[in-house]
Structures are given as C-alpha cells and as structure tokens.
C-alpha cells in the first residue's frame, strides 16, 4: 500500500464516516419500521407515540396467511379449546380461521414468474450477446440506443396494446403471458450487460479451441460460458429483481390466477381498517430476500445497477 500526499487525512475519514453512517441509519429507518411493524399487534402498530419497544407478536403473520370470520362468543365457547397456537391468537378477537389467505398463491406466482422470466431472459440474452459480441449482425451499433428507447415508453402506454394483444391470444392473467412480457422487458438490458461481459473474454481462447477441432457450439459452451459465469449470474440477479418488483404491468394485466405479490400486498385489509401488521408482514417476507441478496452479492450487482453504461 502506497501513501500519497493526496490521501484523505484521518480526520477527514472520520467526518466522512460519521456523516455517511448517519445517512445510512436515517435511510434504513423505514425498512426497519416495516420489519418491526410486522411483529406488532394491531393496537401496538397504531399507538401514539409510535412504539419502538414492544412485545413481539405473530399476529400480523397469522392474519397475513389466513382468512378469518367473526363468531359470537357463545359459538366460540362451543368450539372447545383452540387446537393450535395460531387458532389461539385469532380467537382472542372472537374470530375463527376459515381458511388460508391468497398471499401464499400470490407469493408463489411472483416466484414462478420471476424465475421463469429470469431464466428466459438470461438464456436468450446470453446467446444473443455472444452473437452480438463475436459476429457481424444487424442492429449491433444501435443496441444501446434501442434499449434506451424501449425504456422511454411508460409501462402504461405499452400495456394498452399488450392488453389487447393478450386478450386475442388468451394470455391475459396467465403465467406464460407475464413471463414473456417480463422477458421482453428485461431482454434488451440483459443482452447489453452480457455483451459487455463477453466482450471482455479474449477471443483468442475460442480461436484456440476452434483450431483444436471444437465446433462453434462447443467453443461457445465449453470456453465462453464458463468464463462468463459471473456475468451471467449478476445479470440474472438484476433481471430477477426487476421481475420481482414490477407493479404496473402486473396490476393491469393480472387480476386472479397470475397476480403477483406487489399488486396484492397493498390490498390486504383487516376488519375495520387497514391491518398494518399483516401488510408489514407480507412486505417483510417479500422484501427481505432482496435485501439479503443485495448484501451478499453486492460486488456483482453494481454493474447492473448502473445499467452497464458507466463501463469503459
């Protein structure tokens, strides 16, 4: 490690550190509050002043995963003792569990559509990026411009013709329809990012493989793919996060079978007003995987975030 006269002094580092950490704490407060609210009881969640210390409860999670209905105290007494701990929580409020809520399905839809579209956009993106990187193909020089221009259209504007098209094709409110749509939205970015990664792999490796008697296909999957693995993985994370978080298309094009979690979570309501602990519980389960992903894979995410555009 070399020191130079331009290195920041110790004092500068301390001041910078304190300011950044302060910002980070303030900015994380809403996220901490989401997670905390998920473990509060409904009265605790709307207490004044807002409760920082509270005795944790799983009521929010129970309410998130069940649908309940109110019964009279006499009926409740006739039911006998609650069979499970979550029955017991619900019965404090003169309610019984009538079945599972739709949250599980919505979450599963998010998983299916998220991973399905990620797989497709990375698969198609990789082979297209390879062709763009190594061969003369049309559109090559306009690629970035094309990506940018597809991103200029508001999703609502795209949704109008897609809605009509999908209605004709029977793709409205289907997993396949959403997977294809998210794939197409992610694809241009995926090709662009992957082209950057593949450009960096020296072409000499493949040439050597071709001379050794490999076909193009073999050279592609034995030489290029392993080298591009990190790039492919970080592109995949980026596509997954987009599909996971997407709301505009989901709310317009899905209503029942294929609805994902983002349009569903805001519609969670309790009896007599919004059930904030249940909403927070649903949000926590939905957001925390992405937070963990981000922290674990921070080194690989940066490039996707900056759109791959700040590379040399």
């Amino acid at each position, binding site marked *: 490690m070399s020191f*130079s*006269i*331009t290195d*920041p002094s110790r004092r*500068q580092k301390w001041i*910078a*550190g304190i300011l*950044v950490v302060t910002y*980070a704490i303030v*900015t*994380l407060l*809403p996220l901490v509050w989401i997670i905390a609210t998920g473990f509060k009881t409904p009265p605790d969640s709307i207490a*004044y002043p*807002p409760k920082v210390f509270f005795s944790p409860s799983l009521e929010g999670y129970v309410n998130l995963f069940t649908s309940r209905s109110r019964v009279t105290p006499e009926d409740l007494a006739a039911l006998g003792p609650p069979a499970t701990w979550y029955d017991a929580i619900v019965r404090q409020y003169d309610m019984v569990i009538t079945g599972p809520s739709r949250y599980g399905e919505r979450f599963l839809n998010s998983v299916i559509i998220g991973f399905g579209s990620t797989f497709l956009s990375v698969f*198609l*993106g990789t*082979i*297209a990026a*390879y062709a763009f990187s*190594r061969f003369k*193909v049309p559109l090559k020089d306009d690629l970035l411009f094309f990506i*940018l221009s597809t*991103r*200029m*259209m*508001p999703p*609502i*504007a*795209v*949704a*109008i*013709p897609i809605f*009509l*098209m999908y209605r004709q094709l029977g793709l409205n409110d289907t997993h396949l329809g959403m997977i*294809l749509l998210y*794939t*197409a939205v992610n*694809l241009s970015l995926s090709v662009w990012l992957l082209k950057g990664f593949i450009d960096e792999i020296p072409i000499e490796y493949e040439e050597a493989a071709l001379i050794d008697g490999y*076909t*193009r296909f*073999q050279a592609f999957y*034995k030489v290029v793919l392993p080298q591009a693995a990190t790039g492919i993985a970080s592109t995949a994370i980026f596509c997954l996060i987009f599909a996971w*978080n*997407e*709301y*505009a298309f989901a709310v317009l094009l899905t209503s029942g079978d294929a609805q994902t979690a*983002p349009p569903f979570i*805001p519609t969670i309501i309790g009896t007599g007003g919004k059930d904030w602990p249940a*909403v*927070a519980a649903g*949000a926590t389960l939905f*957001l925390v995987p*992405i937070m963990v992903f*981000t*922290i674990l894979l*921070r080194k690989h995410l*940066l490039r996707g*975030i*900056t759109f791959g555009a*700040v590379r040399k």
Partner: protein
Amino acid sequence: MSDPMAHRIAAATPPALAHRIRGLSDRAIAWVFVAPTIFLLLAVNIFPLIWTIRLSLTDFRTNRPNNPVKFVGIENYRKILTDADTWLSLQATAHFLIWTIVLQVVIGFALAYLINKKFRGNDLWTTLIVLPMMLSPAVVGNFWTFLYQPQIGLFNYVIAFFTGADPSSFSMIGEVGLAPWAIVIVDTWMWTPFVMLICLAGLRSIPPSIYEAAECDRASKWRQFWTITIPMVLPFLMLAVLFRGIENFKMFDLVVQLTGGGPGATTQLVSIDLKREAFEKWRTGYASAYAVILFVTVFGLASIYVKALNKVKDR
C-alpha cells in the same frame, strides 16, 4: 458439466441432424442466436408501438370491442393538447421531476464524495444505503402511507419531535400543499443511492496522479475540486440525470400507491393520468394518442440531452 452433456447431446442426436448442427456456419449460428431476441423485442416493443400509433387515430374503446371503430385523424391529439387536465398533469410531473433530480444529484454526489474518502467499512455502508432502491416501489410506497399518517405515523412523529409541531396537525399525503413534496421525499429516499453509485464510479475513475500534479502546482483543495473533480464526474452525473429523468417522467408504481394522484390532481403525474384514461375510462384511442405524445416528448428531450452529454464527454 459441459463435457458429458455435449456427448449426451451428440449421442442422442440423429447423425444427419448432428452433422447439420455441427456444420452450421458462423453466419447461421449468429442468426439462430439472435433471432429469438429480435422476435421478442419486435413482438413486445415495436409491434405495440405501431399498434398504439394506429389506435391513436381512432375512437376505439376497449370496453366496447363490438362498436364500429371510427377513424378520427388527429382529433385525439388536438383534444389532449387543449385539455387543461393534461397541462396540470404535466405541471405535476415537472415539479416532481425537477425536485427529485435536484435533491438526488446534490445528496447523491455528496454521499459519493464522502464514501470516496475511503473510511473503514465504507463498502458495507454503501450497500446498506443502496437497499431502498432494490425494493419493490409499490410495496414500499404503500407502506410509506403508514409512515405519513398524521398522529401515528413515524414520519410525522419524527418531524414533530424536531420542530415541535403537533404530529396530527399535518398530513403529508392528504394536503394539497404537502402531497407534491411527499412524493418527492419518498422518491429521493429511494433513488438517491442510484445517483450516488454512478457518481462513485465517476470519482473512482479519476486517476490520483492528476491530484498529485495539482498538489505539486500548489492548487488549493477548493480549486482542485472545481477544476478536477467536478469536470471529471460531470459526464457520469449527467448520465445519472438522464436515467432518473426518464424513469421519473414515466413514474407510476410508487406514486400511485402513495397518493393515487390526489388530493385533487396535485400529484397526478402523466402516467397516472394515462392509466385513468386507458384503464378506468377505457378511452383507448385517446389514451393511445396520449401515450404517443409522452413517448415523443421523452424521446425528443432525451435525444437533445444525449447530444449535450456527448459534447461534455468529448471535451
């Protein structure tokens, strides 16, 4: 994994086909590899655009598919551009756009500058700061309505704690004067890290030797900042502004969850207005014309901006 897989595929493929695949020319491979991507992009990006333009010249309504469709020429365009509501939405969008960009550039650059001082643990804190922008805007926006509640909301409580105001005396999303700022605050909270990351990439691209040379020339820190740091980061910063500008011009998910466009039409951004026309009033032809106008606006502004950006880059 590739080796046995290749043999399996080779073994399972009938000889004639295997020969054909193995013998594919580079040109053919290029086409096979690119075709699905081009097909999907055409089907989901270009084709809808053309369809939208066609619809925009008609009075088609999606909820009445059996009505005869009448060609109305540029009537829709004329109506939109003379409608006062459109201009209200554009004003709301301009307010949102300008303030989010100003705040995000100032805070984002300041954070990047501080992080670039390379204090211990800076990469962990950077990651933590980045968290909000990785999350679903609709889900987070919905939860912010809870933080903004008068009395019980955390945001109101914190503001009241520092200013001494009564936490139930103001409603960030319920008041005409405050709602436009409520959405600016949440968007800034969410997307400042994006500007920060791009600025950080810019700061890290400056070779230290330039500062060393300036130091030898006895240039003051202040002068170094304005003559080295700012000009070198400017292209990056402008790129960040381009991305945020495009994203916020078409902003939908976060704001529709936060305020739904209200109160009144104070936070009715163009995307929200467009959604109303297209999917609530079902005026498909009118909404299509609206979409085309928005697209042309962003496209035009972005093109001019990119020209300016390239000039700065080449300097």
